[in-house]
């Protein structure tokens, strides 16, 4: 994304906005005029309209509510990674054509890079991090390990979430079903053999 580095970060660690606030006091006077008119505009907004400026958005992720301050244009992918430090889902391609940013929202798979964070208020978001509880891992995660279904591993979290969601929906999937359903995830290393073997084992070969 062209402006990915301009986005608001309210998470722990380095905060670009705070840095700018501290070091650019001189610019504040000039900025105030603009800000004043922005606030006036915001006051006139209709109900159900959120201003373009950063605002509090509460997201339920893996069973916990998090409130972050982000602009409406910020995607769920960026909030998960930059604000909530859930770096399982990956940004590979801005058009989300690779599936590495797959999460589950209310039980359905969603490409987090193609969804605005503000759209997800009031929904239950699950990321790949939810597939592990202490030492206990989901059977899909264990299956990926067993079938050596990864090389560089970058696509793996998205593939794991998509596989989990796909098998939830198609517990008796055949090889053809799996190939069709998981076509939205791309692995440049070409580990598809191991991934389909893992899915097929869990679906017991579709029988």
């Amino acid at each position, binding site marked *: *994304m062209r402006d990915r580095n301009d986005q608001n970060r309210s998470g722990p660690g380095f905060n670009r906005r705070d840095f700018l606030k501290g070091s650019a006091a001189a610019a504040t006077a000039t900025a105030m005029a603009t800000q004043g008119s922005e606030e006036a505009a915001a006051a006139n*907004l209709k109900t159900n309209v*959120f201003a373009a400026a950063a605002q509090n958005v509460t997201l339920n992720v893996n069973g916990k509510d998090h409130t972050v301050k982000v602009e409406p244009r910020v995607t769920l992918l960026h909030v998960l990674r930059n604000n909530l430090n859930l770096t399982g889902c990956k940004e590979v391609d801005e058009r989300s054509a690779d599936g590495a940013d797959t999460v589950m929202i209310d039980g*359905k*798979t969603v490409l987090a890079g193609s969804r*605005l964070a503000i*759209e997800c208020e009031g929904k239950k978001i699950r990321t790949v991090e939810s597939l592990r509880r202490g030492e206990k891992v989901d059977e899909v995660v264990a299956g990926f390990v067993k079938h050596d279904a990864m090389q560089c591993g970058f696509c793996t979290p998205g593939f794991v979430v998509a596989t989990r969601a796909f098998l939830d929906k198609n517990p008796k999937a055949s090889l053809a079903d799996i190939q069709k359903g998981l*076509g*939205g995830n791309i692995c440049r290393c070409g580990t598809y053999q191991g991934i389909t073997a893992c899915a097929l084992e869990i679906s017991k070969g579709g029988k």
Partner: protein
Amino acid sequence: MRPFEYARPQNESEALDLLNDHDANTAVLAGGTDLIALLQEDLQAPQRVVDIKQVESMQGIAADGDGVVIGALTTLEEISESPMLADYRSLGDVVDGVRAIQIQQMGTLGGDLCHLPNCWFYRNGYGLLALENGESLVAAGDNRYHAILGNQGPAKFVSAARFAPALIAWGADVRVIGPDAGSSEWLPLEHFFVTPKVESQGVSVLKPGQLISHVRLPATTGRVSSTYEVLQMEGLDWPLATAAATIDLDGGVVREASIVMGHVAPMPWVAHEAAQSLIGQPVDEVSAGRAGEIAVAQATPLRDNAYKVQLAKTAVKRAVLSAADMLEGAL
């Protein structure tokens, strides 16, 4: 992505009201599989994004007399799983071709019909017509995925609406609402699409501040249908050429037929003469093959896409055979 306001209307009139502020420099957000990419690439820069996902009247599938009305927010998954649409098989065929659980669960019918072209000139900021000093960059450039029909004007991209061939072959209507709250119009889906002569015409009749709310299918009345998509790879990708056929078979002989091709022209391409050639014939490899020949007889391929003529021809043949359950074993 540039900053924008975000709005979340609860009903159609609220949606229209919100879409028509800012001189209608606004965008409709449903599944987001196209719009978010357009915003990220700076191909669209609306002042407000109107998220219509909570508009209840635009969800779901309902009986309408003998036919069926599908809300524009209905997802691909819902279309493929609905018992009410089981007899409209060509629609399920389209969902089958979208080989990604993510897109099947996020993507909506209305979003598909409004999907902007995947033409790489357009996606790289050269505009729908990709003209430079009046010359077509597409005609001179890499046009392997571009139009083979209807491409003699400035528009050479292919329509990305994947459900359109199947829906038009069924004679579907589309309900367009806005720009004023309360104004709505049903029109044949065939008349919804536009081949632009100038950039500002866009790819459909939708004006700023308007949107699709519903699609209506007539009763099947025993007709059979299929969509055949030629896909390049196993994974998620745009088809190279598609065809949908809806056929009224009477004792093995075609009484009526409709054939519409996709991804071959700037709009869904209705092949009247090809469909006409089937009437009075039994469906077999000969009649289906002839329909394919006729469907592409007027094709004017560009430098790099003559191969698509063969693909479109075969797509028509296979859609016709498949509608009559005769594809198995045929070539």
